[in-house]
């Protein structure tokens, strides 16, 4: 058979534009077919057309913080093949707060040693597209404590198909000790936080850290304990409280935008999922209308009754909610009624959907630079996070004299700053902080380079086993029972494990090394 004629670029792009955006890895594979394919797939004009062709960004997965006290960012992929480097979302020095209109709102984990600093560092707005990809570093609001925050495009009448690089707003909400909820708005156009507005909360309410829900010009946040809804109006710049349907929910409620533009609510009670919509009646009074009740057992296709379920997130554009039950974590499509198991049972906090068009960049070096930039932008001086009840030992094996000196200097500056907030002290602290950061990154890079080179050698093999063993020991319970003695010190049981097995098992777990 004669070789077929060379396909013209137009024909190729007509084919490639039909690739499903939910599977970005397909694009990466296709970009290796030939030079001309690579050229098309990295052409900004083509990628813009691609985004418009598919409309809203696809759901690629969910971020979740697996513990309230220690925000360790984790990522659930909903993709068949991931286009992200294996550890792209593991133990990053930030956690996700929101994802909307092609942007992700991140918060740096501020691992300063001083206790009053907390973990709440600066906000970062991230456009995850490696082509247009950009990061905007926001100052902290006057009061850094934040329960929940959202990022929204601020262009009126925008269809949000191509506004990643346009202006945006960040809305932060929190409550104070006297049960007053505050909302504060950052505008990218003014580059500053506006004046906060507030509203009094009931005694048994607090602002939940769930992701906020945008419906029309209002952003709704879930209030916890005694369930309620806190609504911020973007146009009127005020806060109000809405009562949820008159039912008690075991577990969280999730607020979702409905197709008709009304506010929707999903909640679980008595082993069923209830869906509500907030409608205004003929007299102009708003109230809740029940739209659907689905038994969890049916919804999740379980072969046994499901007594409890917890709603922990939603992705409005994909019409899905995220929940977990004793049977595991599920992504439930509200339109099709289909559920997909995505994780085993464990306790989940809240999840933030990750929705973006992730397409091949101009070159791989630009992309890896991009991930580096993201890290250095949000990097705090010590990478491993440990906060809260159980303090873990800090990862310091790679510290050298240079690092210790720089960090000591930084601490000194912080103390001075704490006593006297003068401009010189602020500047001094900033300089010291930068120097410490730099020393840490240099030392760490070098240490890891040396380590990886060493691991490649025969001698390094021993180190791998050693590291695996240490890691395994760290994860074990402290009060492990090895033997029990009776009243006269006679040994009753002896639970000795086969140490050879233990080593092998732990090595398998530590594949990432």
């Amino acid at each position, binding site marked *: 058979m004669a070789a077929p004629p060379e396909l013209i670029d137009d024909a190729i792009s*007509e084919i490639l534009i039909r690739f499903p955006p939910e599977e970005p890895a397909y694009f990466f594979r296709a970009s290796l077919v030939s030079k001309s394919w690579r050229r098309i797939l990295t052409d900004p004009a083509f990628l813009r057309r691609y985004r418009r062709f598919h409309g809203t960004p696809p759901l690629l997965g969910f971020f979740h913080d697996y513990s309230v006290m220690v925000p360790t960012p984790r990522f659930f992929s909903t993709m068949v093949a991931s286009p992200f480097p294996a550890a792209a979302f593991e133990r990053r020095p930030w956690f996700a707060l929101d994802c909307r209109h092609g942007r992700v709102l991140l918060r740096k984990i501020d691992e300063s040693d001083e206790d009053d600093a907390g973990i709440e560092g600066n906000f970062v707005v991230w456009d995850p597209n490696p082509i247009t990809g950009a990061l905007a570093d926001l100052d902290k609001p006057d009061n850094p404590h934040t329960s929940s925050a959202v990022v929204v495009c601020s262009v009126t009448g925008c269809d949000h198909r191509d506004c990643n690089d346009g202006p945006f707003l960040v809305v932060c909400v929190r409550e104070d000790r006297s049960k007053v909820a505050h909302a504060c708005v950052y505008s990218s156009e003014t580059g500053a936080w506006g004046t906060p507005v507030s509203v009094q909360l009931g005694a048994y309410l607090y602002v939940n850290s769930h992701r906020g829900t945008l419906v029309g010009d209002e952003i709704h946040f879930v209030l916890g304990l005694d369930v309620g809804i806190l609504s911020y109006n973007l146009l009127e710049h005020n806060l109000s409280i809405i009562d949820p349907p008159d039912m008690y929910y075991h577990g969280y409620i999730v607020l979702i935008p409905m197709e008709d533009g009304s506010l929707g609510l999903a909640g679980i009670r008595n082993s069923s999922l209830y869906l509500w919509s907030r409608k205004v009646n003929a007299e102009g009074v708003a109230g809740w209308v029940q739209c659907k009740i689905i038994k969890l057992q049916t919804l999740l296709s379980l072969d046994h009754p499901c007594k409890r379920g917890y709603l922990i997130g939603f992705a409005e554009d994909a019409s899905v909610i995220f929940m977990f039950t004793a049977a595991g974590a599920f992504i439930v499509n509200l339109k099709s009624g289909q559920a997909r198991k995505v994780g085993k049972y464990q306790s989940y906090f809240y999840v933030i959907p990750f929705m973006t068009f992730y397409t091949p960049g101009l070159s791989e070096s630009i992309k890896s630079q991009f991930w580096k930039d993201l890290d250095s932008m949000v990097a705090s001086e010590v990478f491993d996070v440990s906060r809260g009840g159980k303090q873990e030992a800090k990862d310091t094996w790679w510290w050298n004299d240079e690092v210790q000196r720089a960090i000591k200097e930084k601490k000194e500056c912080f103390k001075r700053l704490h006593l006297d907030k003068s401009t010189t002290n602020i500047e001094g602290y900033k300089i010291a902080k930068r120097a410490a950061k730099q020393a840490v990154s240099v030392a760490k890079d070098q240490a890891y380079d040396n380590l990886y080179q060493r691991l490649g050698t025969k001698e390094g093999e021993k180190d791998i086993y050693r590291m695996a063993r240490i890691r395994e020991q760290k994860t074990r319970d402290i009060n492990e029972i090895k033997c029990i003695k009776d009243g006269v010190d006679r040994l009753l049981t002896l639970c000795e494990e086969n140490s050879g097995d233990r080593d092998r098992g732990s090595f398998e777990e530590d594949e990432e090394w």
Partner: protein
Amino acid sequence: MAAPESGDGNNGAARMVTLISSDNTRFEVEAAAASLSQTLQLTILDGGGGGGDGIPLPNVDSATLSKVLEYCIKHAPAAANGGAPNATAVDRAELERFDNEFVNIDQSVLYSLIMAAHNLEIEGLQSLVAKKVADMIKGKSPMEIRRTLGFPDPTPEEQAEMNAHMLEYGWAYE
């Protein structure tokens, strides 16, 4: 009762045009069907292609052209209705069934169809074939895609470049 006749007036004397493939085969089709092609539409509106003249299509061979025309003839009535807003569900289902079967063909034919649909600017056919090819190749490895589309084997240079990128993108193949 003159209404039915005047309504069907065009049908009785539907205008025909002649298309000539690259290997000099002549095809006679209704102007309405041929007009699905944006390229041909202008010529036909100008009165071309009628009688013994014919429109030469030097880029399309007869096997491909007959396939293209099969699509045009089937889709012409719906297109005449302005994208068939009032078509019944049965009609639409029938067209869908036709489309599915239509692209269920040998790869070499599919390949020339892509080119023909582009040269003749037949929007519906373009997207139908592009979708079929996208479904065929999505998720495949670069080499599989090349083979599926009948590309010649990569030159050593291309292969080296491909390998280098594969290493970088290793995680995309898990």
